[in-house]
């Protein structure tokens, strides 16, 4: 079972105080820590587990700057065997189709039984790259997988739907599956683990080597452009309490009491 996992490096924003950059259409990432996209982390873990159960190999592919090597090293430390870094130069401004085009450039020449991607990336949130990639590779696909079972040449996938329901689908291999969070418990990657894979060579490639023209990817190939980005304003029913901690606690307690939260 040879598996390819497409991963992305994204800024961590869970507890960050985000600020819109002066250009009005992006986030100021200066103070943000970069890490693997959460969905992709589950995808790598799932690939490693499938490899541990069925043998074979795992290759991780990313499109990014040289810093993105970190997420590849991290995946290698988790147990991936090889890694490919597509230089993002020339891909700036790409839409999902452009990104998928870059990944397709690498994957079209590889033989593999399964392609995994995260269901979406936390920064752009398109949720399209995996599916476009499947189309371009001509592979059957399933999205939002929360369970994967392989039986011979068939892969059974449980897809997460609304209201806690799951749909079980069967696909012939090779196939592409996009992974939902919670499908597994991703393992911890130790510093020592990352140091151990320091010497594994990462294949680097770029737009030209992949034979992609400026009209296919980047701004030139993009069907959409980001115009403005804004932080949500406090809507009705939301109240931001101010003051020092004592005052905030006092007000909170008062509100809870008023609304009948406590007797």
């Amino acid at each position: 079972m040879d598996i390819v996992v497409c991963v992305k490096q994204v800024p961590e924003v869970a507890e960050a105080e985000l600020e819109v950059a002066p250009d009005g259409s992006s986030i100021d990432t200066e103070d943000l820590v970069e890490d693997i996209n959460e969905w992709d982390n589950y995808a790598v873990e799932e690939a490693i587990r499938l490899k541990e159960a069925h043998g074979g190999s795992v290759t991780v592919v990313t499109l990014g700057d040289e810093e993105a090597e970190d997420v590849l090293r991290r995946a290698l430390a988790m147990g991936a065997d090889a890694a490919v870094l597509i230089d993002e130069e020339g891909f700036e401004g790409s839409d999902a189709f452009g990104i998928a085009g870059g990944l397709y450039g690498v994957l079209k020449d590889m033989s593999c039984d399964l392609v995994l991607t995260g269901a979406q990336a936390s920064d752009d949130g398109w949720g399209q790259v995996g599916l476009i990639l499947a189309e371009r590779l001509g592979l059957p696909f399933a999205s939002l997988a929360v369970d994967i079972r392989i039986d011979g040449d068939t892969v059974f996938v449980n897809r997460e739907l609304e209201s806690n329901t799951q749909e079980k689908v069967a696909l012939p291999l090779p196939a592409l599956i996009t992974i939902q969070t919670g499908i597994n418990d991703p393992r911890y990657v130790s510093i020592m683990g990352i140091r151990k894979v320091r010497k594994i060579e990462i294949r680097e490639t770029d737009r030209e080597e992949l034979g992609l023209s400026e009209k296919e990817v980047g701004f030139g190939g993009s069907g959409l452009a980001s115009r403005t980005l804004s932080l949500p304003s406090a809507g009705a029913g939301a109240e931001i309490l101010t003051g020092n901690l004592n005052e905030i606690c006092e007000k909170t307690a008062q509100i809870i009491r008023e609304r009948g939260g406590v007797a």
Partner: protein
Amino acid sequence: MIPSRPLFWHIEPVWLFYVMAATASAVFAYGTLRRLFVWAGGVRNGTPFFSRESMKRVFLDGILGRRMLKEDVAAGMMHLLIFWGFLGLFAGTLLLGIHDYLFRFLDGTVYLVYSIFLETAGMMLLTGLFWALVRRYVQRVPRLERRADDLIVPVWLVLVVLSGFLTEGVRLAIQQPSWEGWSFAGLRVAALFPSSGSLVSFYPVSWWLHAILSLAFIASIPYFKLFHILTAPVHLYVSPCRPVFIPADEKGPEHHYLFHDFIAFDACTRCGRCVEACPATGAGEPFSPRDFLRWARPSPSVFPLALSVPEGERDSCGDSLMWHCTTCGACLEVCPIYISTPDAVRRARAAAVEDGTQVPTLLVDTLEKLYKYNNPWEASKKNRNRWAREMGVTDFTKTKKADGICYFVGCTTSIETRAQGLARAFSRILGHAGIPFGTLGKKEPCCGDIAFRAGEDGLFEEQAEACLDLFSRYGVEEVVTSSPHCFHTFRNEYPAFCRLSGRPPTGISVFHYTQILERLVKTGAIRFKKPLGLTVTYHDPCYLGRHNGVFDAPREVIRSIPGVSLVEMLHHREKSLCCGGGGGRMWQEEFDSDPKMSEVRIREAAATSAQVVITACPLCLIMLEDARKTSGLEDSLRVMDLNEFVAMALDLADENKEEI
């Protein structure tokens, strides 16, 4: 006739005995070798093999049983009776061998002394064994287990001794020697038998019985906890040489345990002192140091016959066992042979962290935060020095030079709201006393304690390097910490890290803030005037007291405040009970029991009827503060950091004080 004893008297064929002895020795050697091969697989890393402390421990704690007597006089006496009795009989047998094969000296008076010596040893052994059985099965001392080998081993030994006395008695009854009075025990046995011809035919039966029982006993030593008679002295010997830190090796040994750990696993007799001392066990968690040691003990792999660890025993304990330990060190404090379970736990965690798949989810989050944001609390580096900015504390990374003592605030004290009170109070006291100081501001990294305790050695190394680089960049010479954890890491683990990773020595003097406060009181830099009229108790943080021996500095400070009466809790100083926050447990709620360790502790504090429980560690402060609230003690008991208490006594009011 000269008093002496014929060897192999009436015993035929003698060669059979030698064959049996050789077989027993072979079985013994096989069992011992199997374990030695396991030991050889442990990490040694050039640990020295000799220290004066080694000899001291073997003599005082081994031969004289110092630690055993100190913790439990009855158990200590019982053990000494068995140990010395056994040793006496063993020496007697050796002497007999020398007498028979090398040169004859057990004749006449020497024989009589020898005889009375053996009688005494036999009686001591027998007394000790009965005492042991009474303690375990009649008194049912709670810390003792009642497993199969707990019964078989002493009963077997009793049979060995009794068959020995029987053989002697029968021989004396037949021989009726004139010196039989010297064999006071054998004589009593002899009196049971009428002297007759049939006794002569019974004598070989009794002799062979004794021989078989004894040889089988010797053969079984490496297979039961009996093995401790060989391994416990070895562990006493190697225990002072246990390395604090071993550089993480990329190739990595097959085992993560040290040579010392493997010896410890074989040396543990399951006496249960650690079970009584362990705060996790005390709070009802499914963990005890004793269980961990049994779980960690590997089956020998070099030889296929695994007789010692029954399969399944490992599974029943589970891999989660190692995450319960707070590394408080209470078990090490009471272990008669200095087995350091927290260190072995740490090695087990290192293996788990490297594998990565069995690390508890919350700990994974914590370690990732530590790596990315240099603190275990929040996914941001921004707020680390907010309190210091607000107070206008000097930031050495801004002034570019450490003029004065460097206050290493630590992650928890910097970020956690309750613990920040400690930092503000300490800064106020230093300011009041006119001591120049500053912090490392936003650049201050985590000292590495949490990573180290969690077994993430690679991360510890990175953080240690970051800290040391900052210290040297800003010319820091003296460091004072809020947390005993940072204090311990700087004081004990950094020097070992520098030594073993080829870095120059740290070149810094490290203090815990309690030591600085004590100095300020002694030099008169701070003087208390207002009597407080309070009864207080002091909770010893594990990493300040037990791990670093700082017991008196905080107590001296408390006693120097007029109108304060200090009362002690049941567990104090070396015996202090952990709050449950150490060893990474602060960030692992999933293991909490009911009552929590912190609740057990706060109840003990409440039992002293003190109005304030004072502590000297941000983790203890948070844990005890929470426990006070969950235990319904909000009205009767206050939890304060020593800094806050001192600041209150000095009337250094905290405008930002947010008493919640």
